[in-house]
């Protein structure tokens, strides 16, 4: 790593550090105010007001403490990635809480509500971890540190990717982690070396001073950077979608019209039906999987076999939910569709998904539960996700390997190279190249 080389600890801070410190502290404070004023109000989460002011001060205090304790320049701490990696671990560990304690409405039906510490836990946001102030603050700090890391590394990465180091000195080649010398091979051996290395799927770049760079996986470092950028895309897309769009869960009983909150839309559910899956006993005694269609009568065998062989059907469980719905805008009918899980109704500005069902408290009849949402920045999230998948594959499956070839001043042919990942794999590759080159140059192996 580039920073590791700079081992001199410098205690004194410069003006830029103070500025960074101020930016971080101010951003956290802004986040805090934003959360308490808008976010929690919208989401019905009520922190105790004195606690939230206390926490706001604590947020800043913690950041200050971390930065002061680092003993290095603030700027270096923020861009050194140590902060980001520590935060990764912290987010991972904190996320566990939310999977152990009941979250959201589940709290109301769980035993923990009877605990004397319930209010304390609640005020800490432990029953709403993923929406809690400190969790969001963590994510925010993570993204911030990520942005700083990326912007810090971007110029160097671009330089390394697009302006390759082709012209090198003899000593540079000889001092590579993997290096070999071919005495007497010199200039005439260059062609053989080019040939052999090209056969190993390296791309060659001819330098002005006679040295040659052979490279593979040139874009791995850039891809690694893009992988981190994709985070920001996803985070931004998700945040903007949730703030500028909406997401509602609606219970829509059969035949009723329900208004979608905060919009001019209404939805009517003509009929809710279920498909079942289960097993059937055949005449020959074997048991096969079957499904019962939404009409409540038709039974089909999963293996496509003859249904007249079925003597008995058992173990039926709901497998699929279907709602026949129609959407209205200001009571003007729009679209009608039979929706099921995985097959939503889509109109401009809203999607209607079949989510699950519940039983009516009084009649006991099943009630369809729909998810209605609008995510204006969905594309950004999808782009981020795609970028994430592609970039991580390039970054880890195509590690960067570089080999320099040079006819040395003393008549030797010098070959030396390095990689950023999987050292032993490259060593083997390099050894093979050296062996082939020796054969080609007619030099016996050691």
């Amino acid at each position, binding site marked *: *790593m580039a920073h*590791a080389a700079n081992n001199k600890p410098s205690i004194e801070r410069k003006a830029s550090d103070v500025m960074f410190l101020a930016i971080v502290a101010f951003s956290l404070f802004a986040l805090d105010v934003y959360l308490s004023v808008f976010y929690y109000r919208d989401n019905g989460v009520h922190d105790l007001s004195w606690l939230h002011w206390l926490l706001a001060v604590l947020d800043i205090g913690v950041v200050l403490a971390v930065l002061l304790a680092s003993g290095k320049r603030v700027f270096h701490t923020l861009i050194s*990635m*140590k902060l980001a*990696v520590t935060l*990764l*671990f912290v987010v*991972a560990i904190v*996320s*566990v809480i*939310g*999977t*152990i304690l009941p*979250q*959201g*409405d*589940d709290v109301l*039906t769980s035993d923990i509500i009877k605990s004397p510490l319930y209010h304390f836990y609640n005020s800490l946001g432990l029953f709403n971890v*993923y929406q809690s102030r400190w969790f969001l603050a963590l994510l925010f700090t993570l993204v911030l540190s990520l942005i700083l890391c990326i912007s810090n590394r971007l110029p160097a990465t671009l330089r390394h990717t697009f302006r390759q180091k082709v012209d090198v000195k003899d000593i540079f080649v000889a001092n590579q982690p993997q290096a070999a010398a071919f005495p007497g091979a010199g200039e005439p051996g260059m062609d053989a070396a080019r040939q052999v290395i090209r056969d190993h799927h390296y791309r060659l770049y001819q330098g002005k001073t006679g040295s040659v760079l052979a490279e593979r996986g040139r874009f791995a470092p850039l891809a690694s950077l893009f992988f981190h950028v994709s985070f920001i895309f996803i985070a931004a897309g*998700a945040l903007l979608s949730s703030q500028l769009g909406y*997401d509602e869960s609606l219970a829509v009983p059969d035949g009723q019209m329900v208004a979608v909150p905060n919009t001019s839309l209404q939805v009517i559910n003509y009929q809710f039906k279920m*498909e079942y*899956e289960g097993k059937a006993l055949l005449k020959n005694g074997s*048991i096969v*999987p*079957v*499904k019962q269609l939404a009409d409540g009568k038709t039974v089909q065998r*999963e*293996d*496509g076999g003859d249904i007249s062989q079925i003597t008995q059907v058992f173990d039926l469980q709901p*497998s*699929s939910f279907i709602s026949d719905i129609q959407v209205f805008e200001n009571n003007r009918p729009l679209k009608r569709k039979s929706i099921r*899980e*995985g097959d*939503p109704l889509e109109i401009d500005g809203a*999607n209607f*998904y079949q*989510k*699950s069902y*519940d039983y009516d408290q009084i009649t006991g009849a099943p009630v369809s*539960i729909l*998810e*209605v*949402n609008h995510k204006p920045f*969905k594309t950004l*999230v*999808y782009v981020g*996700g*795609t970028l*994430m*998948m592609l970039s*991580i*594959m390039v970054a*880890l499956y195509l590690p960067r390997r570089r080999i320099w070839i040079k006819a040395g001043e003393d008549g030797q042919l010098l070959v030396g190279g390095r990689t*950023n*990942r*999987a*050292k*032993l*794999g490259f060593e083997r590759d390099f050894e093979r190249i050296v062996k082939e080159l020796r054969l080609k140059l007619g030099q016996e192996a050691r």
Partner: protein
Amino acid sequence: MDKLESIFAIVTLLTYLVAGSVYIWFLITRNRRAANLATMLLILGLFTHTLSLGMRWADSGHPPLTDSYESLSLFSWGIVLFYLITERIYPIRAAGAIVVPTAFVIESIALVLNNGPEPLRPILNSGWLWIHVTIAMLSYGFFALAFGAGFFYVVQEYLLKKRYQNVVIAFTLMFAVVGLAIGIWMGFEWANPTEAVNAAGQYYNQYASGDVYKILGAGGIGLVGLLFLGLLAGKGASRPSFANRLPSLDVLDEVSYRAIAFGFPMVTIAIVTGAIWADKAWGSWWSWDPKETWSLITWLFYGAYLHTRLTWGWRGRHSAIIAIIGLMVVLFTYIGVNYLLPGLHSYVR
């Protein structure tokens, strides 16, 4: 279950058992013929395994990924496949003594849980889901490999540091944890909970009052049984000449790293495709469902592993221990969540 399919499955299981034993035999005697035999057996086992999975596919009409038998079987298939590939690249045959028995245990649990082909819920019949589950299972195979290499790294380092006591502790601890985990897992199966739906529309398991004893009892049996086995293995391994039988630290370190470097993009793809699928199915890409959260935790964990290595320059024992804990996180994500935490994923069991 089709008769031929079950014959192949049993043959696979027996082959893995024999191959695993031969690998252990190889570790003890260093008889290279034994190692060749073990590799050949393992290839045979992989072949019959592939056949049985293929038949299952033909039988049920959908890729074998939906119930616990199918996904576990695919898990062990992935372990064996990646191990065989690694064995071709690196001199790491001794690791077969821990990797192949792991594959055997997983495959035998898969067969215990097998209820024959299940009908497929329509929602699960989506291309995104097939990618999601297949890639997730295969990435687990890589993580299991990283675990095996990591465990042997720790053992080899203790051997080279002449801390023979620690070798015994490492073996005992590892075996005990594995025994406890398998025992508890089997205990949950034994308890056979009923599935219920909570107010939030999430599925969860309901247990009877006596179930806790079954679960703890089974866990205890597994713990004690494997603890003694680990103690024996550790005693056997804690001598200087055993270091000669294990691969070198550099090789173990790199195998562990490369396995994770291969698995990490896969788990990334699994999470992203899972989110896309959820968005298409339910209209929400992320709902902090326990399974989702735990796979995020797994992902963050291995992400942190890569960063500690590439950024902090961690290597060796620290990395090996993270790789070992990593598999525990993976297994909890994969199995523990289904039994313990309510969520949308429980019907993918």
